């Protein structure tokens, strides 16, 4: 029997089923809702059949793992070879406290570091700046100069452990400090591996931790990518991030489309510097959220890989298959965590982490159950890491490659997400690109609308959030909370004051002048920033020079 004949038979039989078995059953057992849809408004059918895959061309659309278009995964053996990197985002208090947390996590089986910085660091302020009041060491670790970075990475071998740094506005300065510590440890620069998030575009419309206006920000991002391409071959200079877009309220489709568009914009910006696409594209990396709709998330990861591969091949004419690889880090969704009945968050995180693994991620962070309330305690973060280890070693999910491929539903959803993301990309192209879309508030409005809609659905119980708008009874189980000692701020201020007294201030003055000169002249700033951190200029001082030249970004408010 031919495939075509089989399909016609199936279609005919489905129609029969819809006229006989189905209505009889529905008559006595009505469905829970009149319509079902994913978070991205994609209607979910009652049943998916071979009909939904009739246009699928296996070799063209799915192919084999490690081969274009990489739908089934980047590597030929995926997790049968090496498991994903278990990378827990962490940082709080002083550099010394976080250094101890890093060592604890490595002892517990974590396989890569990921640094969370406090808000003054993220915004490029020293701890004694008026806006830093009450914020030092609270939401991450305070790193004000190379001195702190030396303590933070004490006894961590930078040639063996890779480190991800969630830093954007001052990414160049923190990367410079990391490189400087590597130099001190005597490790050749070509052996230092890790990632700087360094994705400013999404900051302007999603995470909103911006220092400088869009143009100089994009210039600095490009400086880092160019510098890493030439000098730090194992460093991922940018992690093009959908995570924050999603957390700000976007749905899966918007996360997918806007992230890929940011990626396109960076590629264009680097090409303008005269680099060849295959020289830098293999080191571009991505960062996505894994939200609560299991199948939509799996489809999103698959669609993202396929679409990026096509964009790199068709739009940018990449030749090296690695340029077409979308290597991704995934974090389970912080905004799905609830402050009510916090232990339920362990279950949420498990489902989300499973989606990321089935979706073929390279690296994963699992949130801790207490994170709607505070930074995670040691106990909570251990459960989160154990969740990954249970998926890895007990669930069987990593034992075959791309296990949901061929599911009528997953393939239909993967196609649908790719197609709709492509529509968005064409719309943004027509608008004149990402910077124009940011200026117009396009992304901001799209995200604000989705976020509001999600909330209204929750308020009206169209969306059930267990323990929040349903199943709310039951005893509150008290959990212990991590609190940061306010003394951290005093100590950090004292440390910076001591540094300013003890360093060679003449050298600092000179190097800051040199930076000022370079910044006015459009040269790549990485070398002089490395010089400045090595002379122990503080983060606030270095950012201060650039603030003077470029001014600060003024938020475009869209509600």
């Amino acid at each position, binding site marked *: 029997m031919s495939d075509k004949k089989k399909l016609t038979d199936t279609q005919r039989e489905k129609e029969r089923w819809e006229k006989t078995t189905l209505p009889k059953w529905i008559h006595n057992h009505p469905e829970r809702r009149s319509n079902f849809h994913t978070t991205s408004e994609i209607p979910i059918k009652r049943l998916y059949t071979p009909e939904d895959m009739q246009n699928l061309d296996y070799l063209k659309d799915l192919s084999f793992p490690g081969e274009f278009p990489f739908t089934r995964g980047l590597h030929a053996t995926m997790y049968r070879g090496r498991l994903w990197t278990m990378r827990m985002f962490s940082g709080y208090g002083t550099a010394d406290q976080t250094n101890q947390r890093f060592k604890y996590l490595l002892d517990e089986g974590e396989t890569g570091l990921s640094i969370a910085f406090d*808000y*003054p660091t*993220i*915004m490029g302020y020293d701890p004694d700046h*008026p*806006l*830093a*009041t*009450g*914020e030092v060491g*609270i*939401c991450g670790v305070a790193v004000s100069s190379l001195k702190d970075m030396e303590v933070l990475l004490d006894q961590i071998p930078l040639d063996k452990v890779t480190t991800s740094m969630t830093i954007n506005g001052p990414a160049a300065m923190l990367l410079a400090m990391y490189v400087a510590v590597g130099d001190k440890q005597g490790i050749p620069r070509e052996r230092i591996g890790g990632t700087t998030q360094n994705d400013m575009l999404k900051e302007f419309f999603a*995470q*909103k*931790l911006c220092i400088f206006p869009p143009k100089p920000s994009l210039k600095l991002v490009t400086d880092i990518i160019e510098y890493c391409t030439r000098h730090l071959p194992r460093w991922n200079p940018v992690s093009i991030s959908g995570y924050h877009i999603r*957390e*700000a*309220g976007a749905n899966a489709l918007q996360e997918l489309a806007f992230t890929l568009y940011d990626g396109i914009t960076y590629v264009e910006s680097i090409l303008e510097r005269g680099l060849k696409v295959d020289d830098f594209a293999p080191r571009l990396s991505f960062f996505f959220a894994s939200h609560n709709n299991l199948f939509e998330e799996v489809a999103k990861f698959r669609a993202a890989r396929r679409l990026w591969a096509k964009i790199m091949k068709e739009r940018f004419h990449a030749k090296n298959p690695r340029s077409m690889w979308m290597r991704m880090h995934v974090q389970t969704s912080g*905004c799905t965590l*609830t*402050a*009510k009945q916090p232990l339920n968050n362990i279950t949420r995180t498990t489902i989300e982490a499973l989606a990321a693994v089935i979706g073929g991620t390279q690296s994963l962070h699992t949130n801790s159950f207490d994170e*709607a*309330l*505070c930074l995670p305690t040691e106990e909570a973060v251990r459960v989160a890491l154990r969740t990954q280890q249970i998926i890895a070693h007990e669930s069987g999910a990593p034992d075959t490659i791309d296990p949901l491929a061929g599911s009528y539903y997953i393939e239909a959803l993967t196609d649908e997400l790719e197609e709709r993301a492509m529509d968005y990309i064409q719309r943004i192209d027509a608008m004149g690109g990402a910077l124009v879309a940011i200026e117009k508030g396009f992304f901001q409005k799209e995200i*604000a609308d989705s*976020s*509001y809609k999600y*909330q*209204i659905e*929750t*308020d009206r119980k169209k969306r059930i*959030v267990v323990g*929040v*708008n349903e199943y709310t009874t039951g005893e509150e189980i008290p959990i212990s*909370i991590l*609190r*940061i000692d*306010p003394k951290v701020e005093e100590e950090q201020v004292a440390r910076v004051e001591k540094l300013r007294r003890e360093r060679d201030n003449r050298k600092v003055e000179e190097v800051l002048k040199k930076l000022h000169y370079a910044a006015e002249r459009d040269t790549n700033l990485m070398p002089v920033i490395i010089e400045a951190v090595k002379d122990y200029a503080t983060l606030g001082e270095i950012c201060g020079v650039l603030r003077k030249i470029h001014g600060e970004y003024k*938020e475009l*408010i869209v*509600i």
Partner: protein
Amino acid sequence: MERKGKIRVLIAKPGLDSHDRGAKIVARSLRDAGMEVIYTGLRQTPEQIAETALQEDVDVIGLSILSGAHKALFPRIMELVKKKGLTDVMVFAGGIIPKEDIPEMKKLGISQIFGPGTPTETIVRFVFDNAPERT
């Protein structure tokens, strides 16, 4: 009871954090409920918040913070609001504020603190019920 004019609300985000999802949702909900809402964006200093409240002649201030700096910033905001003579203005807050801190925050004169997961209707109702009458 009919009140004179619409309730004017300032939604303000002190602190360095940029988690504005909640603040924007609250701003939009209050606006959709018929109030005049002013949202001034991220990273407002206590001075800016008190000054905007005065200039915009608001009845209500809603503070949103998720950075953990509320203990350092809320006392300063409340002090400045009072200094400007805005003693009738009702202040409420939301964000990530640990339970143990709530009594201390209420002592400052903050009427209510709404944690994560609060339905928007609860906040809208609270503002309607507690906004001071215009004289």
